[in-house]
């Protein structure tokens, strides 16, 4: 009997394919698959959430208020007189915008220096005193409010919630199965990216509706573009994270200019804010 160890061909157990080539194929494949899957899921969520009745949003919001005292989290409630004035203006605009009877708009005036306003579930609109202090006429204020009313009108808050929920569920199911931190991170990023681009679409849609409302209410859209003078400044403020999902203000400003060019020809006077409110603003500016 003979004993020996001949040399074995080492390519049998070693893959000959280049690792980078394999990696490139994998990355493109997974990215394409993830994007299409999330796109489909989001479409599905968008479609389904439209059928959730508005009253459900309101109940949900009421429950949330009970649990967390939401207003306290955002900031101190502002003066009641201002809030009533804003509510009255919002109600007028809501009628002009012809929002469905089932919807109701509730304006909350919050005492905080941030230059921001946003709409949330159940027709609640939050306006920060910082933004109001920077508005010097009713038209700009109406633009802000109509924009937020338009969000409620188009059911954007519940759609965004549905999207977030769907993405969370999808991420969890993938996570539960593969339990890999990398795939988790990847999916998170993809989810965020799509959410961002979709909310830009919502912003532009809300702008369009708001401009139409202003046109119908005042007969012109003068003063609307001043909103972006305010937000444009606010973008430089690093504290202002809520504004970061808004689209490029330049793009939106161009849309407004295009709209006003096609509807009004000459300069129009802007409506002044009530004298008492102006005094308050002036005192706050100092």
């Amino acid at each position, binding site marked *: *009997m003979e*004993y*020996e*160890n001949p040399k074995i061909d080492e390519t049998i*157990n*070693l*893959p000959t*394919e280049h*690792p*980078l080539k*394999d*990696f490139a194929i*994998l*990355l493109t*494949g*997974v990215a394409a*698959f993830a994007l299409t899957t999330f796109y489909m899921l989001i479409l599905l969520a968008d479609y389904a959430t439209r059928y959730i009745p508005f009253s459900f949003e309101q109940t949900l919001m009421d429950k949330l208020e009970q649990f967390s005292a939401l207003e306290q989290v955002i900031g101190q409630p502002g003066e009641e007189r201002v809030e009533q004035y804003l509510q009255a203006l919002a109600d007028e605009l809501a009628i002009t915008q012809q929002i469905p009877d089932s919807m109701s708009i509730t304006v909350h005036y919050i005492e905080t220096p941030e230059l921001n306003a946003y709409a949330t579930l159940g027709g609640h609109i939050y306006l920060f005193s910082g933004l109001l202090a920077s508005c010097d006429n009713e038209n700009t204020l109406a633009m802000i409010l109509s924009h937020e009313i338009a969000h409620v009108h188009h059911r954007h808050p519940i759609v965004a919630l549905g999207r977030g929920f769907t993405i969370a569920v999808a991420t969890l199911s993938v996570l539960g199965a*593969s*339990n*890999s*931190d*990398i*795939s988790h*991170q990847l999916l998170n*990023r993809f989810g965020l990216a799509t959410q961002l681009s979709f909310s830009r679409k919502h912003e532009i849609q809300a702008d369009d509706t708001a401009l139409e409302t202003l046109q119908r209410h005042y007969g012109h859209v003068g003063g609307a573009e001043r909103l972006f003078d305010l937000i444009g400044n606010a973008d430089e403020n690093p504290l202002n994270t809520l504004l970061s999902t808004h689209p490029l203000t330049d793009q939106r400003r161009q849309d407004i200019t295009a709209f006003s060019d096609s509807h009004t020809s000459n300069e129009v006077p802007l409506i002044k804010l009530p004298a008492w409110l102006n005094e308050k603003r002036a005192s706050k500016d100092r």
Partner: protein
Amino acid sequence: MDFLPIVLLTIIGYLSGSIIERRHFQSIRKRELQLKGILTFSAKLPPAEDFNKQSVLVSGNVVISVDYFKHISAALRNLIGGRVIAYETLMERARREAILRMKTDAKEKGASQIFNVKLETSSISKGRANQIGSVEVFAYGTGLI
């Protein structure tokens, strides 16, 4: 923005990982040639004429870690399924290194043949989250002096 560290780590992982791997394979080939004289068999019993020889247990082990590139590559492959090329080269390196260390051990103990060679593989730090996996290969057998 948050992607940046991952991309950076992947590039660093690929560059350093491939250099280390190439060097490791070169060193493995060199030492395999040097230790050609020591024969390994997985047969349980040595030939009858060697029964009067003295025997000694010889062993060698190695723990090798994956680099970040391999880690990402395998995580992506995990979603699709199929051959994980990145890990196959890793296992091959670990196994040949463990056998080489066993042979070195045998040489030091004066053995020239190893019978009943067995290989054990286990993954270290697998269960912990956010932990890059590493494998241990342990080779052992009976050396005949």
